[in-house]
C-alpha cells in the first residue's frame, strides 16, 4: 500500500509523515487554480531527491483554459519527467493521446470520470430498492467492460475512487488496474457558479474571481445528511471511516486530502 498526501505548497513537503511515499498537487475541480510548469519541475526535483513520487491532479477544463492545460501536458511530456497525471476531462486525455504523450505521461482516471455514485444517501437505499439496483449504485461506472477499449487506448493504469460512505462493488473486468482512494473527502457536485464569489448585482453567474476560496472555508449543515464542505467550487462530505465493504485489500494507494 502506498500512502500519499495532497500538498498545497513547497513548504508542505517538510511536514510529511514518514509513511508518505508520494505527493499530489493540482486541483481536480477548478480550472482557474493552476500550477506553473516551472514550479512543477522544481517540485519534481525536490520530491525525487527525497525519494517521493509526484502526482498532478487536473480538473474538468473549460474552453477558456484548455490551451493552458494542453501546454502544461506538452511541457511535462517533453521534459520526460516521471509524473502521474490525474485526468478529469476527456478532452485533455484525447489531446495527450493524439500528441503521443502517453509514452511519457502515466494516466490515472480521476474521480470525476470514474463516476461513482457518491450521494451520502446511497446506503439508505439498501433494503428499499432491490439488491440489483443497490449493487448498481455501489459500483463505480468506469469499472466496466464497456470501458475496456477506452482504458487500453488511453493507457489508463489507475482509477481514483472516493471514500464513499457505503459498500463498494468491484465487478470483474478484462483489464488490469490500480486504485487510488481519496480520503476523507467525498465530492458530490461541482459548479462554476462559485459560492465564494460575491454575486455581481445579486446575479448568480460565472464571474471572475480573486481566489477567495484560498482564504475562506465554507460549509453547509443539511437536515438529512449533516455537514458538507466546499472544496473550492465543489461540495463534499467527510467520511473518516475506511470501510469499502472490507475491500481495503483492493486499494493500492490512499491519498490523504486536506480541506484546501
Amino acid at each position, binding site marked *: 500500500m502506498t500512502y500519499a498526501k495532497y500538498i498545497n505548497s513547497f513548504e508542505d513537503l517538510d511536514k510529511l509523515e514518514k509513511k508518505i511515499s508520494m505527493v499530489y498537487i493540482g486541483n481536480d475541480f477548478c480550472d482557474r487554480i493552476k500550477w506553473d510548469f516551472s514550479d512543477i519541475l522544481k517540485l519534481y526535483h525536490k520530491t525525487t531527491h527525497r525519494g517521493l513520487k509526484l502526482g498532478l491532479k487536473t480538473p474538468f477544463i473549460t*474552453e477558456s483554459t484548455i490551451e493552458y492545460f494542453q501546454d502544461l501536458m506538452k511541457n511535462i511530456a517533453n521534459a520526460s519527467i516521471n509524473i502521474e497525471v490525474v485526468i478529469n476531462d476527456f478532452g485533455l486525455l484525447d489531446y495527450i493521446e493524439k500528441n503521443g504523450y502517453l509514452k511519457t505521461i502515466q494516466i490515472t482516471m480521476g474521480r470525476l470520470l470514474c463516476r461513482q455514485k457518491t450521494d451520502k444517501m446511497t446506503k439508505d*437505499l439498501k433494503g*428499499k430498492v432491490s439488491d440489483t439496483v443497490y449493487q448498481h449504485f455501489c459500483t463505480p461506472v468506469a469499472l466496466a*467492460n464497456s*470501458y475496456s477499449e477506452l482504458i487500453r487506448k488511453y493507457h489508463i493504469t489507475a482509477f481514483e475512487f472516493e471514500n464513499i460512505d457505503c459498500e463498494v462493488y468491484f465487478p470483474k473486468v478484462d483489464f488490469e488496474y490500480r486504485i487510488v482512494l481519496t480520503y476523507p473527502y467525498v465530492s458530490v457536485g461541482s459548479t462554476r457558479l462559485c459560492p465564494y464569489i460575491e454575486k455581481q448585482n445579486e446575479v448568480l453567474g460565472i464571474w471572475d474571481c480573486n481566489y477567495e476560496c484560498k482564504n475562506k472555508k465554507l460549509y453547509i449543515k443539511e*437536515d438529512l445528511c449533516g455537514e458538507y464542505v466546499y472544496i473550492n467550487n465543489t461540495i463534499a462530505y467527510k467520511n473518516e471511516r475506511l470501510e469499502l465493504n472490507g475491500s481495503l485489500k483492493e486499494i493500492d494507494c490512499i491519498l490523504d486530502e486536506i480541506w484546501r
Partner: protein
Amino acid sequence: MKYGGDIIVKIVTPINNIKEVHELIKEGAGEFYFGYLDPDWMQYYGAYSGNRRENYLANFIDISSVKEVSQLLASQGIEGAITFNDRYTDSQYSLLKEILHKIEEAGITNVIVADIGLIQMIRKWAFSFNIHVSTGGGVMNHSAVKFYLDHGAKRIIFPRQLTIEEMNQMTLMFSGVEFEVFGMYGRDPYIDAFCRFHHGINSVIPGLGSCGCIRLNNSAIMNKEDDAISNGNPYRCLNSLNVDGCAACALYGLDRAKINYIKIVGRGSKTERKVKAVRMIKKSLEELENFKTYSDYEKHCKKIFKENFNVSCIKNNCYFNI
C-alpha cells in the same frame, strides 16, 4: 424553422405522451426528445428509471406508444430522440441492448447518451443510431468535442455552465457537427456531468426526501471561521423561481449559424408548461434579427416573458450572463 436570414434554429422539446405532440408542433417545437421505460427494465430495476427522471410521469412505458410517436414525427418530417442519459454498469448492458433493438424497430434514429461506455457499446453492437452526447457527457472544450466525434457522436449538447463566448469559440472550430444549448427551465448550480446525487429515484422512495442537490440549495452556506452565514445562499433562488432558467435574451449573443438546437427541459412537466417555454423561445427568435443592440432585445424578451409567464423576468432566471 427559419428565424431571420437563412439560419435554421430548432426548438428541442420534451414529451411524455403522444397527445401533446400536435400542440407543441403548432407552437414551434422543431424536434422532440423523451424517455422510454421498458417493462423488462422495470422488472429488474423497479422505480429506478435509468434515465434520471421518475418512472411513469416522465417516460413512455410501452413500445407501441414509442412506435406510434415515431411514426407521427416521421409523417411530420420531425426528428425524435430517446434519452439514455444515466451511467450504466456491466450488469445492465444485456438489457440495454434488447431495449435499443426494440426502439430501433420502433423507428427511433437518435439517442441521447451521457456515458462513454454506452457510446462505445452502441458502436460495437453496430446500431446505426445518431448519437447526441448529453449534457451529462461534460463537453466543456474543443478537445472534448473531438473526443466524442471520434467515438461516433453527431451532436453535442453543451453543459449548462459554459459561457456564450466559450460555446461560440468551440463551434467555430467544427463544421458538420450539430450543437445544442439549453434554452428554458432546469437551471442547476451543479454541473450535470459531475453530479453524483441520485436523480430519478428519491421521490418515489419514502423517507429519502428530495434530491440531494435540491436539499443543499435550500441550506444556508456558512463560514467556518465564525459560523456566520456567508454570502447569503447563492443557490436558494433557483428552487423558488417559477421559471428556473431562461436563455431567451442570451440568444442574441449565440452564434445561431452554429448552435441551432435550443433545448427545453422537463420531460415530466405538464403540456401547458412546455407550451409556454416553446412559445417564449419561438417569439424571442422571431424578432431577433430586428434588434440592433442587446439592450433593446433584452427589453423585448422581458416583455414577452411577462406576457407568457405572467411574472417579471429577474436576472437569476438567466442561464447565461451577457
